[in-house]
């Protein structure tokens, strides 16, 4: 391979490192209305009266909107394929306020100062209701978060708003109780994970205006432009044909921008006023009303025989949707289905869940999409099982987990898909070697109060959503033979523009620089569900492969016609179409240029791809920490990750994805925790209080690949983006145990919890 599997520079790299104005706020300079929200100070309330007269009359204010002025049909802001599994449970502005920060009024004016002034002039009388803040109490609580009659779940996800239920389900196979009865060792524990904010460096932001045709143009920092078109059409109650969505460069997403967070507000302002409008979320707003990872409480029951063969797993996930159901019904599924599948040899399993509404911030999609929570629970339980068995946790895994030998097996916990590729055993063995596990497990005494210990976890994810995700691309042959690759997938820093160009260049036998990438504009880009669910390389990548095939055939046909040969008599080497029977040939440049003249055929191709399977990428993560046993302080020394993502299309980008995901996982493990006060207001709503890892916090990180070949992916590729966040929580918890004999089952893993645990052990 000439272009694939090479660490080429991203196509936008030099623009980004020289600070070119390529993001939403940069390309929408010039006058537009500043849009801001008056947000609810209460976690649960009804608006009894709202007086906007003074605000409206303030000079420089163009529009003030309340629940009385917005469309009354409920919708979801979750960016998912229609029909969305997330219930239609919200309005742009609602009379009922379901969490602190829920929007009360939209204000638009000439500048920020004026708008702030106007907001302070709005008088609201609230009927304050008792909030439901503890999601553990939510099911069948007398406080109901969504009492409305027009609550609408489009899919059968088990929603029942009268019970505060956003979704519920149960799946099982085998004879669970019988298997547990035959188990010699059973671990039964409850694990808690907290809500985490994605904290992408560019906060939510959207610009809207009306174009020459009177259509709503939306420039937004989003991962899902086509879903945004539908969400806005639903929210504004206008035809989808009236909306165009453009995605410029994005300053990070990690799932946060798989929901419409800022889009509705400037959009409705533009529809009402006819004027350009822009909304930029402050960091604080991104914290208090973003779309964070769902908080979860997961019960695990895990049974093994006397030799440590795992026979049965039961997981129950209780999931906090918060005020609205975005991504609630779907994230929860991954907590069990992805986590349990690693132990595919089990004889019986049960996975059930409840996703409940409460008066806290609504959740959303965050890298890992529920699997991360599940892996913390299950991998921690497996580590606890190893302790019971008095067995090395890596040995326990090698005995039970998916390995290369199981390729071809059906995975009952994974929708009965077949395992096509896996090198998880190699990943784990290599990770052990890299960190020198056998020398360091469980810990090495460093003298004084310090020990250095190691901890392990394995993980998987999917590659796209089987039977749901669609990616289409178009490739055009232009003057002199360069290609335009038109995509609907959204590069959000992940480098997919470049990765897809690498695939195209490989297929078309040309230079990487000969492929120009264009995305995303819903008016002109081919349809793509968007960049989420680890789908882009795998799904859209295959669409590129297919499109190149089609285009190559067209080039062959046209070349053959131009040199007067039959298509069977010619071949194409990327530079020219040449005759196989004599030395006649024609260059791509000549074919391209003649294709722009009459009598000839203009050459363009478009294909789409979807997949009946979602092949899992795998990884092993091993951490080495230094623990101060007096204070419980943890320092990260080394993190080793060995990944099977199939063929890495761009190893540099795969490596940096892995490093970035690990560091986010480290933040989740050690300190990231959205906290509320007793009234339901988020307390740590800035980087001062909500700490994310800095470069001093992460120690050394080493990444290696043990590539398998996924037959259904482009050049054997699977996904990588989400997988890599799944191991830090359980691996660090395991290292803490190996240093202190304390099992931390509630994230984050803080010094206090460790010290408390050590005291209890005494």
């Amino acid at each position, binding site marked *: 391979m000439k272009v694939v599997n090479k*660490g080429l*520079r*991203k196509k*936008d*790299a*030099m*623009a*980004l*490192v*020289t*600070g*070119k*104005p390529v*993001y939403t*706020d*940069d390309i929408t*300079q010039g006058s537009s209305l500043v849009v801001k929200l008056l947000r609810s100070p209460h976690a649960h309330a009804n608006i009894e009266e709202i007086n906007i007269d003074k605000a409206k009359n303030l000079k420089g204010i163009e529009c003030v909107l309340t629940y009385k002025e917005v469309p009354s049909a409920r919708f979801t802001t979750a960016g998912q394929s229609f029909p969305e599994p997330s219930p239609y449970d919200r309005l742009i502005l609602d009379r009922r306020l379901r969490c602190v920060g829920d929007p009360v009024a939209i204000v638009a004016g000439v500048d920020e100062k004026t708008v702030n002034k106007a907001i302070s002039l709005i008088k609201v009388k609230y009927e304050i209701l008792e909030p439901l803040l503890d999601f553990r109490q939510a099911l069948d609580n007398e406080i109901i978060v969504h009492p409305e009659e027009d609550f609408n779940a489009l899919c059968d996800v088990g929603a029942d708003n009268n019970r505060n239920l956003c979704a519920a389900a149960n799946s099982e196979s085998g004879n669970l109780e019988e298997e547990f009865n035959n188990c010699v060792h059973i671990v039964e524990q409850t694990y808690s994970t907290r809500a985490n904010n*994605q*904290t*992408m*460096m*560019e*906060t939510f932001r959207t610009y809207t205006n009306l174009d020459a045709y009177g259509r709503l143009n939306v420039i937004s920092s989003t991962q899902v432009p086509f879903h945004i078109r539908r969400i806005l059409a639903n929210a504004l109650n206008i035809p989808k044909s009236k909306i165009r969505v453009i995605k410029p*460069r*994005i*300053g*990070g997403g*990690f799932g946060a921008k798989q929901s419409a967070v800022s889009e509705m507000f400037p959009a409705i302002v533009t529809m009402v006023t006819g004027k350009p409008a822009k909304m930029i979320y*402050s*960091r*604080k707003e991104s914290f208090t009303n973003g779309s964070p990872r769902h908080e979860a409480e997961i019960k695990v029951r895990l049974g093994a025989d006397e030799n440590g063969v795992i026979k049965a797993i039961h997981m129950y996930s209780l999931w906090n949707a918060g005020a609205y159901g975005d991504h609630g019904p779907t994230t929860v599924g991954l907590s069990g289905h992805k986590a349990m599948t690693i132990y595919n040899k089990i004889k019986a399993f049960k996975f059930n869940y409840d996703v409940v509404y409460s008066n806290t911030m609504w959740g959303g999609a965050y890298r890992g999409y529920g699997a991360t929570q599940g892996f913390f629970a299950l991998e921690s339980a497996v580590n606890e099982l190893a302790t019971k068995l008095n067995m090395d946790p890596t040995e326990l895994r090698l005995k039970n987990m998916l390995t290369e030998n199981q390729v071809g097996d059906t995975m009952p916990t994974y929708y009965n898909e077949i395992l096509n590729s896996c090198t998880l055993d190699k990943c784990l063995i290599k990770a052990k070697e890299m960190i020198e596990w056998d020398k360091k497990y469980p810990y090495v005494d460093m003298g004084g109060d310090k020990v250095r210990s190691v901890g392990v976890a394995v993980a998987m994810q999917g590659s796209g959503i089987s039977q749901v995700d669609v990616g289409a691309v178009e490739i055009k042959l232009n003057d002199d033979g360069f290609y335009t690759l038109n995509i609907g997938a959204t590069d*959000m*820093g*992940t*480098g997919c523009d470049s990765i897809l160009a690498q695939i195209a260049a490989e297929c078309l036998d040309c230079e990487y620089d000969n492929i120009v990438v264009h995305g995303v504009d819903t008016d002109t880009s081919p349809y793509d569900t968007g960049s989420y669910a680890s789908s882009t390389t795998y799904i859209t990548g295959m669409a590129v492969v297919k499109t190149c095939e089609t285009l190559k055939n067209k080039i062959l046909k046209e070349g053959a016609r131009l040199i007067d040969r039959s298509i069977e008599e010619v071949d194409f080497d990327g530079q020219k179409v040449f005759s196989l029977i004599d030395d006649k040939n024609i260059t791509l440049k000549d074919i391209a240029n003649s294709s722009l003249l009459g009598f000839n055929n203009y050459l363009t191709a478009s294909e789409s791809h979807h997949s009946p399977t979602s092949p899992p990428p795998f990884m092993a993560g091993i951490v080495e920490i230094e623990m101060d046993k007096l204070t419980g302080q943890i320092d990260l020394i080394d993190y080793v990750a060995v990944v099977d993502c199939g063929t890495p299309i*761009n190893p*540099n*980008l795969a*490596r*940096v*994805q*892995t*490093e*970035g*995901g*690990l*560091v*986010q996982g480290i933040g989740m493990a050690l300190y990231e925790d959205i906290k509320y006060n007793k009234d339901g207001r988020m307390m740590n709503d*800035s*980087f*001062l209080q909500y700490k*994310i890892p*800095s*470069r*001093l916090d*992460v120690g*050394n*990180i080493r990444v290696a690949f043990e590539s398998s070949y996924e037959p259904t992916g482009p050049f054997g590729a699977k996904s990588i983006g989400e997988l890599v966040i799944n191991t830090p929580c359980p691996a660090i918890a395991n290292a803490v145990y190996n240093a202190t004999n304390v099992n931390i089952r509630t994230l984050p893993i803080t010094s206090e919890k460790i010290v408390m645990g050590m005291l209890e052990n005494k």
Partner: protein
Amino acid sequence: MQIKLWINDREFEDEISPDTVLIDFIRSKGFLSVKRGCETSNCGLCTVYLEGKPVLSCSTLAMRADGKHITTIEGIEEEAKEFGGFMADEGAEQCGFCSPGFIMSVLAMKKELKNPTEDEIKKYLEGNLCRCTGYMGQLRAIKKYLESQI
């Protein structure tokens, strides 16, 4: 109030309100590389040079720059490209939103510290957050860049 200052050696004279923050002033003049990532002076995205020294433009009042010289990455494009090339070769810019501020800090560090150790590098750049890359690629780029300068 009236201020006069230079951004990348271009003179700007303007009437501003006293609470105008430097980042907003700079962006309003079209130097859009400068980004805001927080309101609490924690992220480093907004780093520019004031009289050659790195400052957080989000927490510097524009009037403090009166009579002074500001430099943004647009003003040192060649240096930025040189170091940026090392970043690009590592894939160490992902979304790139943190890159301008980060690169301003790296180039300032290069002037300030002679042969910095890995710890010194990390310490100097601690205030530049990046949520995408996990910092390792940036570190590789810095090391290779510093080596290339010897």
